[in-house]
Every structure is written in C-alpha cells, then in structure tokens.
C-alpha cells in the first residue's frame, strides 16, 4: 500500500468523440446544442464546454437519419468522481413559420470506463401542464421549453414536469484517464 492510494489527488479525464446522428420520425431540418455540466470539484482543463452544430436535413433513404458528425473534445480534472460530467444535448428545428422550436432534450454521463463507447440518448420535450396552456401554445406556436437545459443534470425538481419522448441521438465517446487508478479508484478496467 502506497501513500498515494490514500491521499486525494487530481486525476484527469479526457474525452474525444462526436455527436453522430439523430432519428426523429416527425421532424426535419434540425440542429443541436451541447453543454457539459459537472460537479463542484470538477474543472475543464482544455476544450470547449458548449457548442452548436449546423442545420442538417434528413437522409433521403429509408434510414431517415439526421447526421451532424459534430466533434466533441474536452478534458476535465477533479479529485472526486462525484459530480461526474454529463453531456446535455438539446435539438432544435424550424417549424413551418420559421420559428425555432425545441425538438428534444437529452442527457447522458461521460463514460466512466476508458476506451471507445457509443451511447443512444433518448430525447424528450416538456409538455404543457394544462389543457388551456396546450391550446395557447398551439395558437401562438410557442412550445414549452426549459429556461436552462442544465437543469436536466440535476436529479431534483423533476417531479413536476411532464415530458414526451420523441426521438434519439447517438453519441460516440473515446475516454482516456490519467492518474485515476493511482489514487485507489477501481472502475472495472
């Protein structure tokens, strides 16, 4: 047993990857935004925390996929795995009147094991809570949306929301750790 396994030290998590594609049966011409949210002990070392993709149209074959091929490249440092970074993806599209309308929000954790992995994130939109609001949102064309999508990384306060899942996004990650095992953490690798 060495001293380093008991002491707390800084470890690094580096992730490269891409937001590959999406499948939304009912919508077209969409773009996505991403943001990484992490706990108080975490800090971004290199890379950009948030980004916004191009507007993509569906493929003209039977797959009906929206391909973004949008790069992710970010490194974090921390002393504590609690508050592990989460990727929040929000997808927007244009409706028939040219308004930006949210088509889905999704959230996933950065992989906790190193190596290559692919995740399918189901996307959902908040729904109006009452019939009257449903009606006004239909008339005005303004759909309910989250003021701040970072809310999704938190587990509390969700009991009041009603959502509808209506699509999914595929994200690909390659994760590299530095000094993680040195401080006594075991993640099955």
């Amino acid at each position, binding site marked *: 047993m060495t001293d380093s396994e008991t002491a707390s030290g800084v470890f690094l998590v580096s992730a490269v990857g891409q937001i590959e594609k999406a499948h939304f049966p009912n919508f077209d011409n969409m773009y996505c935004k991403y943001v990484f949210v992490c706990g108080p002990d975490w800090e971004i070392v290199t890379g950009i925390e948030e980004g916004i993709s191009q507007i993509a149209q569906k493929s003209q074959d039977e797959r009906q996929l929206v391909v973004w091929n949008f790069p992710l490249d970010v490194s974090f440092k921390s002393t*504590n795995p609690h508050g592990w970074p989460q990727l929040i993806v929000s997808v927007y599209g244009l409706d028939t009147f040219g308004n930006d309308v949210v088509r889905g929000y999704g959230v996933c*954790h950065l992989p906790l094991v190193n190596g290559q992995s692919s995740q399918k994130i189901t996307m959902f939109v908040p729904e109006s809570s009452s019939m009257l609001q449903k009606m006004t949102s239909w008339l005005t064309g303004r759909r309910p949306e989250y003021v701040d999508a970072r809310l999704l990384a938190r587990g509390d306060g969700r*009991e009041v929301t009603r*959502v509808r899942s209506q699509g999914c996004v595929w994200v690909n990650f390659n994760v590299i750790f530095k000094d993680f095992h040195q401080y*006594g953490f*075991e*993640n099955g690798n």
Partner: protein
Amino acid sequence: MAELFIVGQLCSAERFPAKSLFCKWSIHAGTNWKIISGHKEGQTQVDSPSYDNRTWWCHPIDIHFASKGIQGWPKFHVQVYHYDSYGRSEIYGYGFCYVPTTPGTHTVDCHTWRPIGNLRDEFRRFFLGGGAQLKTPDFVYCGTDRYRLHTEALGTVRFRLNVIARNFRRYGVEL
C-alpha cells in the same frame, strides 16, 4: 474508510399496462454506510412516449457512499406510478435491486410487481383504477412478511449504473 461511487441513470421502463408513467426511487443501505453527497431519493418526470415502446425518464443518479463494512450493501427501491389522463396517479409496481458489486458499467433490470386484492377489489380496479397498494412499503425489501401477499407481475425498470470503488482492497475486500 472505503468509498463507493454510484453514477448513472434511472433510464426507462417497459411492459407496463400503460405508458404514461413516473417513478419514485430511493437508495437504502445498512448502518455501516453513510451518504457523503448526492441525493438518496427522488421522483422522475412523467413521460408519455411517442417514439418507441419504452417510457424514458433519463433521471440522473450520482451518489457517494463511505462504508465501514459491507453488510447492508446499497440497494435501490422503486415504485412505478401511472399518471392517467385525469391527472390521477395510481401505483403500478414495486421493486428493488441491488447496486452491482462489480466496479464498472452495468445495465440493471428491476422486475416489479403489485399486490392483488380479492375479486371485488380487482373488479373495482378494472373500472375505476387505483387498486390495492401496500400500507407499509417495507414488504418490498424485507423478505420476512412476504408470504402473506398475493401479487401480479408488472413491467421492468432499467437502470444504467457505473460503480467506482475506492480502497476496498485495502481492507481485504475484493470486489
């Protein structure tokens, strides 16, 4: 002290009689375990899926435990409720599952059940909703008084859990 980090999501549910569902979850551990940070219970959003056959909650879970002994390994309790078109919620299923003892990434499926009452209760439930529910949910995770219950199978709840263990080996515990 040995530490255990549980990071993941309460992902989804399937094979329930209706799809507009939400879930109340909590994590319980023995007296040797202490929660250092993170929420130990929560309630998911209500999802009415229009994409596939599953109800998606994507509810984040991030809990940090410190442990003095492995007795009372942490387990999740779930209660799945149906949210109907009148805004009422009724219990659909109870279940529990242990946090995997292997560090790494796991998909954990938790099968759920509900108690069934007598013929009159079931008749009433069929037309009005509601139905029998447990007065004390202790039955769910304690095996001693279960023999008095008559239950019916319901759907499954899926967790995606990542387990990170720290310093267990130092105390001779091999995970």
